[in-house]
């Protein structure tokens, strides 16, 4: 069975700097996989390569067996590869309703319908409301995104990815800046995704990583340092050393 997402010899150079160094990585179908690493390890560059924001200098990316290395970002999304951003990337002048509506319409292939008012299809509305309810956004659907409290914006950031119906979901530090109480709700929602959705979590918060992931990969200086099950990684003295004394269990 082909991997949900895999890279072979993936490399990205910025001038003399190697940001991603020969990464060969495999995300199994249905995986709950975490990618960790110290600051500047190249985690976000790796995600940008996977999603097509950056073009690799060398190497291959395959999504469900299909080579997507040179594919435009939006076409990767249509094939089910969806991400969230570490720093919220939202549409400030629009409401959550419109934001989710665009994503759902686009996915259903309505993006070029220019002669029909948005929201005239109940199947779209139903899905918007379903997602908004799941992410506790139903009470702010009509508010302007820019005026939402940070926590709600963070939820919208994640909800927007869900609206694209991912088959492979890349979460770039989803809990960054989310209050403790809401973190677990957020992760519970992610964990509740059906098993045919594969998830790669990029995260700093070790608590979160250990409670969510089944496998962990460690990225150091752009290269894959090691990979293993949660307990293997947690007990690996080299990983501890890489984190320079940063405690792995909290």
């Amino acid at each position, binding site marked *: 069975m082909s991997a949900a997402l895999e890279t072979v010899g993936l490399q990205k150079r910025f001038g003399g700097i190697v940001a991603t160094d020969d990464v060969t990585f495999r995300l199994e179908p249905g995986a709950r996989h975490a990618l960790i690493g110290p600051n500047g390890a190249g985690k976000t560059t790796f995600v940008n390569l996977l999603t097509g924001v950056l073009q690799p200098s060398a190497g291959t990316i395959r999504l469900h067996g299909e080579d997507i290395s040179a594919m435009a970002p939006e076409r990767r999304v249509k094939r089910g590869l969806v991400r969230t951003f570490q720093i919220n990337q939202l549409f400030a002048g629009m409401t959550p309703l419109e934001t989710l509506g665009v994503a759902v319409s*686009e996915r259903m292939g309505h993006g070029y319908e220019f002669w029909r008012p948005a929201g005239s299809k109940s199947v779209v509305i139903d899905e918007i409301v379903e997602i908004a309810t799941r992410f506790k956004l139903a009470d702010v659907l009509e508010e302007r995104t820019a005026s939402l409290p940070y926590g709600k914006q963070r939820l919208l950031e994640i909800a927007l990815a869900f609206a694209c119906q991912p088959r492979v979901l890349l979460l770039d530090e989803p809990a960054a800046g989310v209050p403790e109480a809401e973190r677990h709700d957020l992760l519970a929602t992610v964990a509740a995704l059906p098993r045919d959705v594969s998830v790669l979590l990029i995260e700093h918060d070790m608590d979160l990583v250990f409670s969510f992931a089944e496998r962990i990969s460690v990225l150091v200086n752009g290269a894959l340092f090691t990979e293993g099950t949660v307990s293997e990684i947690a007990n690996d003295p080299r990983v501890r050393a890489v984190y320079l004394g940063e405690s792995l269990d909290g």
Partner: protein
Amino acid sequence: MQGTPTEIATRHLAETSRWKPMEFVFWLVAFGAIWLLPSHHLILNEIIITALFAMSLDLILGYAGIASLGHAAFFGFGAYFAGIFAIRVIGDPLTGLVLATLASGALGFITSFLVLRGVDLARLMVTLGVALVLGEIANKMTWLTGGADGLQGVVMGPVLGLFEFDLYGRTAYVYSLVITFLLFLMARRIVVSPFGLSLRTIRDNPLRARAIGIPVNRRLIAVYTLAAAYAGAAGALLAQTTQFVSLDVIALHRSADVLLMLVIGGTGYLYGGFAGAIVFKVLQDVISNWTPQYWTFWIGLILVILVLIGRERMNHRAAVLWARLRGKPEPRPRTIVGGH
């Protein structure tokens, strides 16, 4: 707001496409002016054409976030096309208008590839460059365009074979108004469609728009082509109703003026172009009667104040004041304004 989230969502989305009372008032006044302001048809004709031109810029600036300093390229192209078509082929206004619109759209499509890359400054320069190039071509091709002397000898037939253009601009105003209204109806429908919504995501955040599967470049090409066609239609209307075309239609100041009007009127709600064109033309008329040489001083001052205070804040203040006067609760900031 009451109701289940589904009801609220349905209502909210329906509201954005429903006509507001002020819109009916605006168009009633515009059509009423046919009978109420018979002695002002010439200036009204100029205003409505300018408004259509400004609306075409709003389609790319207010909805898709493309700043252009060369939008007169399409206005001028449409004007020359319609003028030359009338001289060399046939003087029927509607035929000329339709063809000039399509041709300008085609020109927009070709040049749209130049604005895909880069951000505001790069786009300003590229659009400016395209307009300068076209302006110089129009200047050089004297045999076709009349060059610096302008295109002479445009004679238009009657609209629909029935309505002759008269000296007082009555037919001109009615013709321009009806065409503008029809094009407005189309634009209004487009901007609230799923396609229109997707443009707004590109304006707000192209990176994320791509990340939710929106083919950003194709959408930009589509809307740029549309806006160019609209600008071309405005240019054609000017050429046909004034029966003259000069290099002025494609000059830099025309691109700058229309941008100015849009900033004065506000972007991203289609009426900004109308409001801006009216304010601009009326101010020009009033102030230049009072102090002919210095009217741009006042326009400049208004522009600086508008940009410094910020339209959204001003609109909000006005709304708060209005609500207080009527003893209603204060409104929240509006959700639909562009804010560029």
